């Protein structure tokens, strides 16, 4: 990369080239491809804002429409690979290198293209890791971002889905990069300034509103008795035992079940006010009953959730909101909050091995990491104590160390059913991620959460407390001891598992005083989407595909 392409004169040249397509800063959607052909240089590092949820889809289409003779060799640096266009640009020769975090819906195609060699992946990152590299060695020359509205000066209003925009714009605009924003509408005055206009060089009025994926909506109607049983074990055996007040939840049905039994089973256990009060979490609809029952003190959000806008706006006492009355989310800050200010992460995964390593990569799918490794890791930079953090470390200690020198431990809980859909076992000898890394010649297997960060594995068979394991063999048998009827589970050393249970390393539902037959759907504070709407006082507006009444 020559000096000329990263200095202030490069920015002037790009702005001048784009000015032909613009009226001031404003560019019509029909001119978007011409604009990008004018401002992007071959070999540029480009970020198409593709977040976990909202998508700069109009600009993604515009980039995919560029002439590969003019725009080529791009190095894409973006958190989400979500839209088909994000990968089309590699097939048609516009881009050739990718650094990213998450590729949920495109996971199968990413795996295939990596295999064919049409896509060179620098690395799969966690969100914070990629954001960090934006400021060190992956700074974009051009960022294509997305917002709800803009004024003629380029001030942007992102609405509730602020997500990654401030981070992407900060890295680009203050290092002589060019920022193009697509917006749903140009307005006289934006409801709130999420991005100041002097950081935005062009504004494209999109042909249609940007796409937002409802990723965090779980229909209570689909929560099973097994998930309720696991939720009961989690509340009684982990939340209650450690007094976890500050936490992050994954997005699976297991954690949705926990949210839904806080006002019922949690209340019965007397845990209200003692656990689950401060959250780093998206506005999950399944949290509404707990919020309305007074369980929740505050929630900071990575992004928003489709349909939750009015409800969140009505609860500024709980959520972070702006003067316009809508949610202000911020992925980089919320990831940092989840990493440093939470005492527990609990979430699901697709595969767990005998050391407790986990991965969501399965044969033929590279889904990426997103934020789970940030939430699900023990931050060695943490220096403030809390009861849960200290208790976890105490359990891991053999008692011979100096107590005042004992680093605390974050609770990292994997909540998994022993079999996934189609009887695919969750517990395996070797992660598919390792096989993929071996076959693709990668330097590093895509591991979601390393076993040494995991403190508990919770299945329908019980809780394995890995903090209490003293040897590698104990650890393996603790994992086998909750692996149910999978081959790994059936391969357990029964005598050793019985000993571990004696010591409380493994705890069955009955050891926790939980009758399996009490795990009933009547424990769910909301049993349907409609119940959630009722709890919200009619403010929650579920996306069409979840309206089943």
């Amino acid at each position, binding site marked *: 990369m020559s000096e000329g392409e990263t200095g202030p004169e490069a920015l002037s040249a790009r702005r001048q080239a784009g000015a032909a397509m613009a009226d001031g800063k404003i560019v019509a959607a029909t001119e978007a491809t011409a604009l990008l052909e004018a401002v992007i240089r071959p070999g540029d590092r480009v970020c198409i804002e593709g977040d976990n949820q909202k998508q700069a889809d109009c600009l993604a289409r515009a980039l995919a429409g560029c002439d590969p003779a003019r725009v080529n060799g791009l190095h894409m640096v973006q958190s989400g690979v979500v839209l088909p266009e994000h990968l089309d640009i590699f097939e048609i020769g516009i881009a050739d290198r990718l650094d990213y975090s998450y590729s949920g819906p495109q996971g199968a195609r990413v795996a295939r293209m990596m295999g064919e060699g049409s896509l060179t992946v620098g690395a799969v990152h966690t969100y914070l890791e990629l954001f960090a590299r934006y400021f060190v060695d992956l700074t974009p020359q051009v960022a294509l971002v997305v917002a709800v509205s803009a004024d003629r000066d380029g001030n942007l209003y992102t609405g509730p889905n602020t997500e990654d925009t401030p981070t992407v714009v900060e890295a680009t605009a203050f290092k002589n990069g060019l920022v193009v924003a697509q917006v749903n509408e140009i307005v006289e005055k934006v409801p709130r300034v999420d991005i100041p206009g002097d950081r935005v060089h062009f504004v494209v009025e999109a042909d249609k509103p940007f796409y937002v994926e409802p990723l965090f909506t779980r229909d209570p109607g689909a929560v*099973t*008795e*097994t998930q309720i*049983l696991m939720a009961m074990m989690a509340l009684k055996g982990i939340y209650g035992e450690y007094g976890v007040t500050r936490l992050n939840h994954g997005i699976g049905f297991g954690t949705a079940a926990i949210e839904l039994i806080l006002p019922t089973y949690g209340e019965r256990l007397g845990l209200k006010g003692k656990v689950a009060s401060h959250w780093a979490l998206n506005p999950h609809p399944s949290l509404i009953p707990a919020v309305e029952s007074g369980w929740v003190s505050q929630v900071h959000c990575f992004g928003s959730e489709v349909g939750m806008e009015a409800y969140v706006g009505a609860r500024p006492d709980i959520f972070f909101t702006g003067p316009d009355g809508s949610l202000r989310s911020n992925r980089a800050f919320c990831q940092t909050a989840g990493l440093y200010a939470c005492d527990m992460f609990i979430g699901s995964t697709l595969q767990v091995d005998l050391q407790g390593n986990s991965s969501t990569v399965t044969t033929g799918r590279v889904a990426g990491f997103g934020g789970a490794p940030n939430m699900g890791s023990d931050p060695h930079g943490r220096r403030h104590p809390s009861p849960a953090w200290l208790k976890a470390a105490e359990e891991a200690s053999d008692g011979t160390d100096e107590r005042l020198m004992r680093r605390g431990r974050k609770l990292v809980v994997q909540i998994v*059913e*022993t*079999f996934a*859909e189609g*009887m695919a076992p969750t517990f395996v000898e070797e992660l598919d991620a390792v096989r993929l890394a071996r076959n693709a010649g990668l330097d590093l297997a895509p591991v979601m959460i390393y076993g040494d960060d995991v403190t508990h594995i919770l299945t*329908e*068979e019980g809780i394995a407390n890995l903090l209490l394991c003293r040897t590698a063999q104990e650890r393996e048998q603790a994992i086998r001891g909750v692996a*149910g*009827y999978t081959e790994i589970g*059936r391969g357990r050393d029964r005598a050793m598992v019985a000993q571990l249970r004696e010591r409380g390393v493994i705890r069955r539902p009955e050891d926790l005083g939980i009758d*399996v*037959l009490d*795990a009933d759907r009547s424990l769910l504070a909301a049993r349907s989407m409609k119940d959630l709407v009722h709890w919200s006082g009619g403010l929650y507006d579920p996306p069409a595909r979840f309206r089943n009444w």
Partner: protein
Amino acid sequence: MDRLQFSHETPRALGGGRDQAILGVVASGNLEVLMERVLEPDRCEIEITTPLGGYDAVWEAVIADFVERAAPGGVRISINDGGAQPDTVMLRLLQAARMMEGQS
């Protein structure tokens, strides 16, 4: 459709007064369990119809654990499986046993 049969000796008869219990539905990921008190008190027989072949060892392990846990002596159990996972199978069996243990 795969058909599996198991026969177990049990230490005692299943308690309670009901002669028959039926529970669950043959839906995807679920199963239907029928229990009938028609055998000698030290016997339990289980017949399973399942659309998924190749899981004989899993079924054998689930049934053995259930028999050990519930001691369902005197009961013939018919399972119509819809591809349920082992934990769901165990749950339905325990639920059906509890129904049998209720009043007639």
